[in-house]
């Protein structure tokens, strides 16, 4: 009798146990490409922070005896040196820190602005919604990259402004996604229940709407990080982004392109890091989409 009750309880627990998020996590962990993406990111991040500790070189020290030497174990120039005799190994790590930081911080800024803006527009609705989304439409018509270049031209080539400029432009899509999701969530019973219990609009938006539209936002932001890293690389490549003595992958690739025929490793090594990061984020983003939206499996 007691044994029976025990198995029943256990069975009930196992029935109840699988939450939506845990199921998604399970699907994500089973996705080999996505897990490879996570591994690549962990490795690159580790490299970004460990490389300067391992290498005997400083990123700004010039070794005029060894200019543009190919990767070699001698003198610990594992990735070779650039046109100014600076060690590429520590420079790629420094570039990784800048590029990853820009990608993550900017995405965070864009997500915060976009989620709040979209949720408010969608929840309040009516004229407010129309005006708010018309503003988004107008900003959308300005090609993103040009807007960023104008902002950078205007406010100078400063790394924090690069963060801001990219973030200020990238929130638009998130706002659109969240607004659409909010319009749908507004019709649900749980929001109606909250409203009929007298919950204020801010509470409904923050406690009921935002958590329920978060899935697509997570997927989109994962894919936004590589976009931002790429925009930063484009800007730096064109000389409008990160400035010397700081560096980023875009700047390194630009310098590598300039030395294309004499020192191809200056291009190939930073380009490989950038490409690997792009792959990693795209794999993770796709994995998250499949994990969070199992309807697509068919």
């Amino acid at each position, binding site marked *: 009798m007691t044994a029976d009750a025990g198995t029943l309880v256990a069975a009930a627990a196992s029935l109840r146990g699988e939450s939506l998020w845990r199921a998604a996590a399970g699907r994500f962990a089973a996705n080999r490409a996505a897990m490879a993406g996570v591994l690549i990111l962990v490795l690159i991040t580790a490299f970004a922070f460990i490389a300067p500790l391992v290498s005997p070189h400083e990123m700004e020290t010039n070794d005029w005896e060894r200019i543009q030497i190919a990767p070699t174990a001698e003198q610990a120039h594992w990735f070779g040196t650039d046109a100014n005799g600076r060690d590429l190994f520590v420079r790629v790590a420094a570039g990784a820190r800048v590029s990853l930081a820009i990608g993550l911080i900017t995405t965070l800024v864009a997500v915060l602005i976009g989620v709040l803006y979209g949720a408010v527009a969608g929840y309040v609705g009516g004229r407010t919604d129309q005006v708010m989304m018309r503003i988004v439409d107008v900003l959308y*018509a*300005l*090609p993103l990259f040009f807007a960023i270049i104008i902002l950078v*031209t205007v406010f100078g080539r400063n790394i924090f402004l690069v963060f801001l400029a990219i973030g200020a432009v990238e929130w638009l899509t998130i706002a659109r996604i969240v607004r659409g999701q909010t319009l749908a969530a507004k019709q649900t019973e749980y929001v109606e229940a909250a409203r009929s219990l007298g919950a204020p609009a801010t509470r409904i938006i923050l406690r009921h709407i935002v958590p329920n539209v978060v899935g697509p936002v997570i997927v989109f932001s994962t894919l936004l990080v590589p976009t931002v890293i790429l925009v930063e690389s484009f800007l730096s490549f*064109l*000389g409008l982004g990160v400035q010397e003595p700081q560096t980023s992958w875009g700047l390194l690739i630009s310098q590598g*392109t300039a030395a*294309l025929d004499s020192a191809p490793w200056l291009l190939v090594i930073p*380009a490989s890091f950038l490409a690997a990061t*792009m792959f990693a984020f795209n794999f993770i983003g796709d994995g998250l989409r499949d994990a969070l939206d199992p309807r697509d499996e068919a």
Partner: protein
Amino acid sequence: MLRFVASRVGVLLPTLFVIVTLSFFLMRVAPGGPFDADAQLEPEILENLRASYDLDRPVIAQFGLYLGNLARGDLGPSISFKDYTVSELIAIGLPVSLQLGLTALLLATLAGVPLGILAAANQNRWLDHAIGTLAMTGIAVPSLITAPLLTLVFGVTLKVLPVAGWGDGAWENRVLPLTALVLPQLAIIARLSRGSFLDVRRQNFIRAARARGLPEWRVVLVHALKPTLVPLVSYLAPAVAGVMTGSIVIEQIFGLPGVGRYFIQGALSRDYPLVMGVVIVYASAVLVMNLLADLAYAALDPRIRRGFSAGSAA
């Protein structure tokens, strides 16, 4: 339909006006100016220079002047390229950029759609996975990397194609820039058409066509192709913006005389009229493409005309 067109066109001009106004004032408000580099100029000469470009007037008056000239199609003189007007520079650069961009879009569509359909028709088989990998590579590896790598392989190592330059549009000079420009677009288009074709294939009219015993190629080419292309239309506008962005970098890497190069040059030297001119040309292009995409979409799917128009699905 007519009302829909009118409402769409009606939004276009105010949008362009907002863009012009925003970029104009943003650039004038910022500290620094186009003559900063010539720091050794005598104050009188600097004053004359500024006067000759109307930079000594109040900003509002400058804006009025600019709008007046713009209405007459005059984009003003370039400051960094002396002896050239902005219109002349754009007239030199635009044909190159347009040729590159349109060819790239055309090639990407012509190759991307069949690849996507091929992948979908072989869903979850090796061909699907191969095309998927190719598409993922195209999306993940930006032109910033492919362009220099292509130059390294075909220009520097194999020496079969020119490293850079336009060569008055000789085909050898176009191969590498076009390849770098096409790859990301091709990848996105292939992915979109794969997903779209998978959706279409589940529809009843396809089942009906199969049930009537039509051969598979007829089902795909005659019945499924058009509805497969519908979602692609809405990608047209962002694609144009993407190609333009890509072409800035491509023009820089390959030293092509397109508009993008003037834009970067203008931005670096704070050549206000030049940057404004290029922004206006590009923004108009994007707006018109947005409009065309909206109209084409509405023409293909009547539900959109009646529903809430939340702008193009960019």
